[in-house]
């Protein structure tokens, strides 16, 4: 018997491409007709994708958004970190070395500032809500950096699985908030030049959020923001379980 489901599951990556194509087509219609091109097409497409992820998460209680429906499992491949990192590197084709050298120092400064702000705000919020031991505060603070720094720090320090779950959730919330707010606030913070994009990428740190947020704002700025953001997870994994933990451990 010919089974359509089976064909879809076997050709998962193709189904994912078709799915993304459909989402883009819908957002093109919405962007043109409903919002008269005031909201970028990509921003609408990403928002639709997030809503789909939320709804499928609600019904399946799974971890991978739309990919928890077997027919759409190819989305994990297309949207996984392997292709994400690969295509981000390819965006560097449009980047200008002199722009990066010009903004290099403030980009590095923003990297440190971003991690410091995220970590200590996150740790303070954990403290306010009753997680007053140094290990839990460090883990949740690390989750406020990115959703990779959180679990790495948590497992290095031996945090409880409940706290590690909160830290991952914190990082995912951050990525989504950055994605949605970037095109909205881009005008206010003058995010329209490579230097600001590098500072923004370093401060936000979450590669997923920065990559999607800039794609929705202006694809030409992607390489600059992504460049500084990709160093953030590494720096966070280095600082959170060591220096930052020792600081918190001294006080609590």
């Amino acid at each position, binding site marked *: 018997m010919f089974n359509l489901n089976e064909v879809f599951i076997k050709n998962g990556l193709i189904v*994912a*491409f078709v*799915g*993304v*194509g459909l989402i883009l087509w819908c957002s093109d219609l919405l962007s043109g007709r409903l919002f008269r091109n005031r909201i970028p097409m990509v921003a609408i*497409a*990403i928002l639709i*994708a*997030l809503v*789909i*992820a*939320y709804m499928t*998460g609600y019904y399946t209680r799974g*971890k991978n*958004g739309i990919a928890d429906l077997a027919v759409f499992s190819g*989305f*994990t491949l*297309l*949207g*996984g*970190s392997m292709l*994400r*990192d690969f295509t981000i590197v*390819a965006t*560097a*084709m449009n*980047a*200008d070395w002199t722009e*990066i050298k010009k*903004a290099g*120092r*403030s980009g590095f400064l923003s990297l440190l*500032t971003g991690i410091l*702000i995220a970590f200590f*705000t*996150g740790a303070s*919020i*954990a403290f306010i*809500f009753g997680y007053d031991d140094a290990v839990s505060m460090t883990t*949740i603070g690390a*989750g*406020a950096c990115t959703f*990779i720094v959180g679990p*790495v720090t948590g497992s290095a320090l031996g945090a409880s699985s409940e706290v590690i779950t*909160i830290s991952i*959730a914190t990082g995912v*919330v*951050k*990525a*989504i908030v950055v994605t949605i707010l970037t095109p909205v606030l881009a005008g206010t913070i003058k995010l329209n030049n490579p230097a600001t994009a590098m500072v923004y990428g370093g*401060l936000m740190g979450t*590669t997923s959020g920065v990559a999607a947020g800039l*794609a929705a704002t202006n694809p030409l700025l992607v390489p600059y923001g*992504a*460049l*500084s953001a*990709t160093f953030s*997870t*590494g720096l966070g*994994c280095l600082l959170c379980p060591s220096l930052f933990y020792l600081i918190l451990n001294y006080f609590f």
Partner: protein
Amino acid sequence: MGIPSNVGGVGFAMMLLIIIQSLPSTKKWLLPEVSKGIDFWNKMYIPVVIAMSAVQNAYAAFSSGFIAIMAGIIPVLICFAIIPLLTSKNIRHV
């Protein structure tokens, strides 16, 4: 190191590509075919980002409690607020 992700290798790869295409001596490596290939993956970036958004654990993130939502939102708002401070400094130095 036991870290389940790339910790900066992507950034260095980007710098390498940018340097190669900026220096006159290495620019000739980028034949038109090569550039076209890299440009293809550059454009493929948008579908990848949309697929990535569709597989985020959005439901769990927003239903796992107030701490996660607060700790996810507040630092982002602070960072957005200080972007103008950091960039104006940079312009003054330059």
